[in-house]
């Protein structure tokens, strides 16, 4: 037992580090990229002043500094893993110092595992984790001061400063300091300092406007992405941390190695049972779709969908956009399980993120700008984000609002990972003709609407019609509109807009066209030569199979699941 206890104590931190690194760096890599894209760390004095100046601002500043490296997920995963291990090691040292033993040391893993679970939800920022790391290590630092007066002064000044620097997680340091003091030296000066610290916080709470917001008071407002977080989560976390410190102190004299081993098994068991439940595969998948789409990696989106059907509506939108952007929509739209026009667009109230990509790439540049701006002010509370600021620079540049674009780009020059991108765009803007000739920006500039029309996200198909009328050469808008018609099963509108190229129609279009011809009793022999007659023959075979199947989708799906005819007969929305 003693050996197990000893070796587990040495090996488990390494296991925690490796497991957390693999979890976040590999299994949650798209989460990290998405998280990083929704923040920006500026290397400027003003940014530092503004961030650190807020309650909990130092913790937030350091965390944002670290989060910028999520841009490289393996490095980002290592950063998260190191923070989790640093918290555990700090907790273990607090317990050791308070008990002068290793009693119930497995409890030192409780806060780390708790935070690991929280970080599975992208709305929890790592600020609270870093704050806890700082809190436990500050407590250890104070405990190492032998001089009582010095320790009491450090407690008084340090804890207050810590609260201002990291927010509510400073309560963990307070608990640790008091627990260690009571368990070891029991110096009344230190305990008095702790009491004065609590009173000081209460006074500041009362006189400073911070107290008007419970959330700001508790978390500095930055442990969670939105303002509407239930602070109860953090109360529970800190209470669990306090329990993990106090129980070993109280129970130290009764604890034997076998109890440590039991505790170890219980903690590992709890972790193994809990973490997989909180691993959000759908969310990870959707973020992967977004990040790939955001970077125009269309073929990778399609390949991803080919391996696993998109499980969410946003992922489906990314796939359909990718098919359009690569010119494959007419051919392969029904190679994937479509479930209606909902897979093409969402209303403004439902989504700004994914539909912003659709708007941008189809030439609705002003609307894309609006979506990006709204996302910036709503999603990334109190800070700018890479996703939105780069997009705002692009939209303003495309629309010819160069000074605004320059403002965003100059700001982006103060970042580590977007500097060169910003410099490239600034250089491009020096010669506006170069924008016209740019492969993507030039095309988007030419694809913008010519005349104003009111935009309604709930009627995006109508917006596309307007766009195609104004910009007949906007191939992407045309294909998206045709996808709308097909998914709406509006074959009449489809046929009316259909342009038959010399090389013939792509498969999905041709299937729809054959259906229209059959409904309207058009003799295929009278059609132009570039219409594939085999499609008409396939349609006849489909009808016979349909009749024989007794309207059974499972039977039909095997041979005809990828046809437009199957979609029209069997997919309800």
């Amino acid at each position, binding site marked *: 037992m003693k050996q197990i206890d000893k070796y587990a104590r040495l090996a488990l931190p390494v296991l925690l580090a490796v497991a957390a690194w693999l979890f976040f760096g590999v299994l949650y890599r798209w989460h990290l990229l998405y998280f990083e894209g929704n923040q920006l760390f500026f290397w*400027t*004095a*003003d*940014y530092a002043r503004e961030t650190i100046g807020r309650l909990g601002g130092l913790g937030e500043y350091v965390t944002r500094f670290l989060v910028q490296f999520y841009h490289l997920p393996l490095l980002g995963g290592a950063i998260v893993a190191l923070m989790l291990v640093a918290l555990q090691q700090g907790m273990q040292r607090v317990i050791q110092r308070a008990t002068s033993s290793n009693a119930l040391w497995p409890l030192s893993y409780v806060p780390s595992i708790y935070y690991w679970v929280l970080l599975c939800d992208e709305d929890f920022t790592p600020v609270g984790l870093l704050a806890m790391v700082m809190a436990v290590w500050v407590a250890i630092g104070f405990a190492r001061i032998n001089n009582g007066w010095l320790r009491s002064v450090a407690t008084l000044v340090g804890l207050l400063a810590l609260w201002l620097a990291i927010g509510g997680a400073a309560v963990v340091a307070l608990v640790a300091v008091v627990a260690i003091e009571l368990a070891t030296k029991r110096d009344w000066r230190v305990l008095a300092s702790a009491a004065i610290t609590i009173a000081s916080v209460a006074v500041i709470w009362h006189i400073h*406007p*911070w107290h*008007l*917001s419970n959330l*700001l008071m508790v978390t500095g*407002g930055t442990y969670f992405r939105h*303002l509407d977080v239930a602070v109860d989560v953090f109360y529970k976390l800190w209470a669990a941390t306090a329990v993990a410190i106090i129980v070993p102190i109280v129970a130290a004299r009764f604890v034997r190695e076998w109890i440590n081993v039991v505790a170890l098994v219980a903690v590992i068991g709890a972790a193994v049972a809990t973490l997989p439940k909180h691993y959000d595969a759908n969310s990870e998948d959707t973020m992967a779709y977004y990040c790939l789409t955001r970077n125009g990696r269309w073929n990778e989106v399609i390949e991803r969908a080919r391996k696993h059907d998109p499980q969410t509506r946003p992922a489906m939108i990314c796939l359909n956009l990718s098919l359009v952007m690569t010119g494959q929509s007419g051919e392969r739209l029904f190679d994937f399980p479509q479930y209606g026009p909902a897979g093409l667009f969402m209303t403004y109230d439902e989504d700004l993120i994914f539909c912003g990509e659709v708007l941008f790439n189809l030439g*609705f*540049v*002003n*609307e894309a*700008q*609006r979506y990006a*701006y*709204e996302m*910036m*002010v*709503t999603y990334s*509370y*109190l800070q*700018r984000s890479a996703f939105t600021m780069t997009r705002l620079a692009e939209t*303003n540049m*495309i*629309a*010819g*609002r160069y*000074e*605004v674009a*320059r*403002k965003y780009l*100059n*700001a982006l020059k103060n970042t580590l990972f977007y500097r060169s991108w910003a410099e490239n765009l600034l250089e491009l803007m020096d010669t506006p003709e170069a924008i016209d000739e740019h492969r993507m920006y030039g095309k988007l500039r030419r694809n*913008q*609407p*010519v*005349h*104003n*029309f*009111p*935009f309604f996200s709930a009627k995006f198909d109508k917006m596309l019609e307007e766009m195609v009328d104004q910009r007949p050469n906007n191939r992407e808008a045309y294909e998206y509109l045709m996808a709308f018609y097909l998914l709406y099963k509006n074959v009449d509108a489809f046929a009316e807009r259909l342009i038959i190229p010399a090389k013939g129609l792509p498969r999905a279009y041709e299937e729809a066209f054959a259906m229209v011809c059959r409904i309207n009793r058009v003799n295929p022999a009278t059609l132009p030569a570039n219409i594939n007659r085999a499609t008409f023959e396939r349609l006849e075979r489909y009808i016979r199979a349909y009749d024989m199947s007794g309207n059974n989708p499972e039977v039909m799906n095997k041979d005809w699941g990828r046809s437009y005819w199957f979609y029209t007969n069997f997919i309800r929305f």
Partner: protein
Amino acid sequence: MRKSFIIIALTVALAACTSADKRTSDQLPPIFPDYAGVTVPVNIAPLNFDVTEPAQRVEATISNGSEQIEVKGRSGVSILPRKWRALLAEAEKLTVTVAVTADKVRTEYAPFEIEVSRDSIDYGLCYRRVDPGYEYYARMGLYYYDLGENEEHILIENTLMGSSCVNCHSFAKTNPSRMMFHIRGKNGGTLLHLDGENALLNTKTEATKVSCVYPSWHPDGRYIAYSINDIKQTFHNVPSQILDVYDHWSDVVIYDTETGELNTYPILSDTTRFETFPSFSADGRTLYFCSADPKAAEILPEVRYELCSVEFDPATGEVGDQITTVWDGDGASLLFPRASYDGRYVMVTRSAYGTFPIWHKDADLWLIDLRTGERRALDELNSDNTESYHSWNSTSRWVVFSSRRIDGLHTRPYIAHVDDEGRFSKPFLLPHDRPLEWYDGLMQSYNIPEFISGPIELSPSDILQAEAGAVELNAR
């Protein structure tokens, strides 16, 4: 020997320090903000500036003719307030010479002058800082700025109020102890701060249907005229335009702070007209407002507001029965009428159409001389970009106005002097201690700059306490 070595070393070091080539330029220095030729009040805070080009050293000499100060910096200059005040105290004019050292070349630029007006400016400005966004908003707040110290103070930030929107702050002739602003959202209302007493008013009544919007205080501080508007937004698709805000309908009402009643008037609630942007005259006996034909509102680019007025009796709170068209706008839309407190002028924003000129690049400031009836575009103030909201200081010798001239999106406050003849000086950007870093990095707009004659004695706690209990209003 050792002494000689030190002398030689010092000589070499000195030579190295002064080895930059010297050039002179007949151009004005590349500084931000542009202070060349502006007129500033005698009590303004230091006009610190930065150079807009890479520099290793910036030197400036500022002279008032009898005294001068020299300031140096790396990329700009920061002037000591004590020395600045001493320099301004006796000055009629400042001459500023700037030299910039870059790539070991010291360029001395052509000097420029700053006129110093003996007309003091009020204590400060109150404004909202908000993202120039669309429907949603994040962090915003009301702030006031000490013009003599270059210091910003927080009046209230929405992060303390559950992300509410705060807007339309207004003062009774710049008096900070008689002020109001709206808090929108949950637990919202109109916060009224009257000589130390605070109340949150629910201005949405059965009769008015919606809450009060654009305010104007009566000069004696008793009444506040409001527009009530059913406001909508529309978004443009074409690159040259971004969005428009317009009204479905609007009326003008007047709140009496003594009786607590919200007075409605048939003549200002005409269903055949839109009435908005009320503004009392200096003597408080005329109420200006903007008015448009609702029929035209069906096609937004055809909506034109004209400037109208109606008599107002401060003793009874009643309005006259005759509406006068002061100016029909000559084919354009007139907005934000603001009467100067000396009774001489009304300043308006003029734009091609609509009611929300901040998104209209063509929007300019115009001045109507009430003595002569003459009206003119304020070319001294206008730029190629948007000029929009504006207000007068308590002596009517200074105006502050919103302009998007820097980048076309982020609104900044500019201040200009007006002399006895109604001539406006070249405006200057609201000074700041670190102007380039601040304005370049700031992604928010300055919204509704209003002069205030002193600090605002209203704490966030006071505001939140008032927010706890909204007072229902009765419409009469």
